[in-house]
């Protein structure tokens, strides 16, 4: 065996070890559910990470709706029919009957509307500490690194999946969240037929700790993600990766 090969092998082992130490413990070592298989190549160990905090950023109202739609589509794979989720937002915007169109039961969601940012963050942290919830979605504008660290520590203990949706943040600052997503709506495919087609999004995973940031064009058809193109790795500069 060449000495170089040996070196790469050793480095590979070391890399695995680092990933094992630095990724939060997953509650159960089972492969991610079938619905999320499209995304799994981007993540360490090829599993969609639960029991962590995902961050979503949106700017336009249409983008915000697309992001919430994508979150609902993700929840379809993460939730059981009897699980309870909490949706915390400053104002009521999500229309519950639409969640049914993403294969969820709208009555399994409890909505909490808190205009005060302090109350909202407190509620978010408290609910992420509660292991009876499957998923907690928090819509807020700004979040500091320390605050996001608190949320991440809370989920690592409880095993709840946290989703932070930041609409029009003042600054896209670095957070302790495992991932950062950006969802943009794309014109739907109708094959020259009249009318509007299935929801179609440009899904950008701009940051993922120990994983490979990627971009997909995804359609939501019959309660399944449907990929339009092959994934292509976006070139991410070295310093962005370090922040993850």
């Amino acid at each position: 065996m060449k000495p170089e090969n040996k070196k790469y092998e050793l480095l590979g082992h070391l890399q695995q070890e680092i990933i094992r130490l630095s990724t939060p413990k997953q509650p159960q070592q089972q492969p991610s559910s079938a619905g999320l298989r499209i995304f799994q190549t981007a993540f360490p160990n090829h599993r969609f990470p639960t029991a962590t905090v995902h961050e979503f950023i949106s700017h336009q109202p249409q983008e915000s709706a697309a992001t919430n739609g994508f979150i609902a589509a993700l929840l379809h794979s993460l939730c059981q029919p009897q699980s309870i989720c909490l949706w915390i937002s400053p104002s009521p915007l999500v229309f519950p009957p639409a969640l049914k169109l993403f294969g969820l039961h709208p009555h399994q969601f409890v909505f909490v509307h808190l205009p005060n940012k302090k109350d909202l963050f407190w509620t978010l942290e408290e609910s992420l500490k509660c292991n009876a919830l499957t998923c907690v979605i928090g819509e807020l504008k700004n979040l500091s690194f320390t605050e996001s660290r608190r949320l991440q520590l809370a989920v690592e203990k409880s095993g709840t999946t946290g989703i932070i949706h930041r609409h029009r943040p003042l600054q896209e600052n670095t957070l302790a969240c495992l991932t950062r997503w950006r969802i943009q709506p794309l014109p739907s495919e109708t094959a020259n037929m009249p009318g509007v087609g299935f929801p179609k999004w440009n899904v950008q995973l701009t940051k993922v700790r120990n994983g490979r940031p990627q971009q997909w064009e995804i359609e939501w058809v019959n309660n399944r993600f449907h990929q339009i193109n092959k994934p292509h790795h976006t070139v991410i500069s070295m310093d962005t990766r370090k922040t993850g």
Partner: protein
Amino acid sequence: MKRYVSIWFPNFSIDRLLRLYPHLQHTAFVTAAPEKGKMMVKAASEAARQKGVYAGMAVADCRALIPTLRLFEDEPQQTANLLHKIAEWCIRFTPSAATDGADGLMLDVSGCPHLWGGEQPYLQNICTKIRAAGYNIRAAMADTIGCAWAVARFSHTENIAPAMQLHALLPLPPAALRLETHTLQKLHKLGLHQIKNIVQIPAYSLKRRFGETLLSRIRQALGQEEEYIQPVQPEEPFQSRLPCLEPVRTATAIEMALKTLIEDICRQLHKKSRGLRKCVFKGYRIDGNIQQISISTGSASRNATHLLKLFEPRIATIEPALGIELFTLQAPITEELGSGQEALWAASSHNNIKEVAELLDRIANRAGSNAIKRYLPQQHYWPTRSIKMAASLNENPQTEWRTDLPRPVHLLPAPERIDVTVPLPDYPPMLFRYKGRLHKVIKADGPERIEQEWWLQNGLVRDYYCIEDEEGGRFWLFRSGHYGAGDPQWFVHGFFA
């Protein structure tokens, strides 16, 4: 020697209605209930009785007599509850008070009257207090239950001296012996109109003709046979007290007191298998001031740690000043809570409704219960009315959520005006301006016409369109009204994913 007071409410359901609606004082009204296919009068007000309406008449006949007659439904359950409450209230006069039929009370007052200065003032006191509350009553005191019952209803004397029951009963009709209707009819047919006619007849012939009941009733009334009442048991409020040896002033001490009291009250609740919905913690200061904090829960709970957590943020609002010498904790509102539940929940760590309920309690405690909402489907087409709030965490939908109509993932609380360029009359717009940006419509679906529900609200009809612009943004627009009738306006109402 036993003494009993019988209280009779001759018009109990009428008195109850008059207390509820004082403006009915001099009007003719009746309570009625369906019986054999027609409405029968159960009780009539004073004014109605004066015009010849009495209990047992058909309501149609009464209407012929008094066209302006007002009709109330007979509510036997509510009336019985009220009577039970009055019986509980009567515990101030004697420890054993019982309800007696649907319109009477029976108090065992043995050994009580001397506390009011004798039997006469005692009976007077009871009557005055109940009459002041607006009830018409007749009361009598005697040695036996049977005698007191008879005298209250069939005589005008109030107090039968000890051992004088036979004398008091002699002139009364046989109905005063609490007999069944067919026995009374038989006695009437035989011309036995007074009790004195009956008691002269030898017991064996009475027994042969009328059965054992008549003899037993006579013996009960005369005190030769024991009879018992079933006193009401007032529900004990869940309460716990903690006096302090020395007045306490520190937050730690208050917290310790609160913890002790909560644990005690949870033990009480556990015994009765109940859970509390509201809890009040009071501190009595040495200067006479009372400091209090209270919490409420979304569902019944008797989890001490959870309740303490709810109280914790409020402890700081207590001002001990010179010190608090007595703490009390009350649970004014409680609910049934099964005991098997806890073990079951503890076993399944996930999707634990109790834990979620406790989390929501904590959120409600901080931000108010209005902040928390859970929705269920409602059968309406109008978008904002197609959902309703769920009353509890366990409530399940009665109908299915609809999936056949496109509904946006974001629905604006109020539709926002937009300017459009639109081909007439029924096409989606080609261009529209929303928040200062021009959107060019590439694809469109619709219209879906949603009419106003005229029985709820009047207004213009809405034609909804799903629109996709050149960047892929998907909107839910609607036109309010028709072209050709007024000037219809366009609105954005939501965003699709």
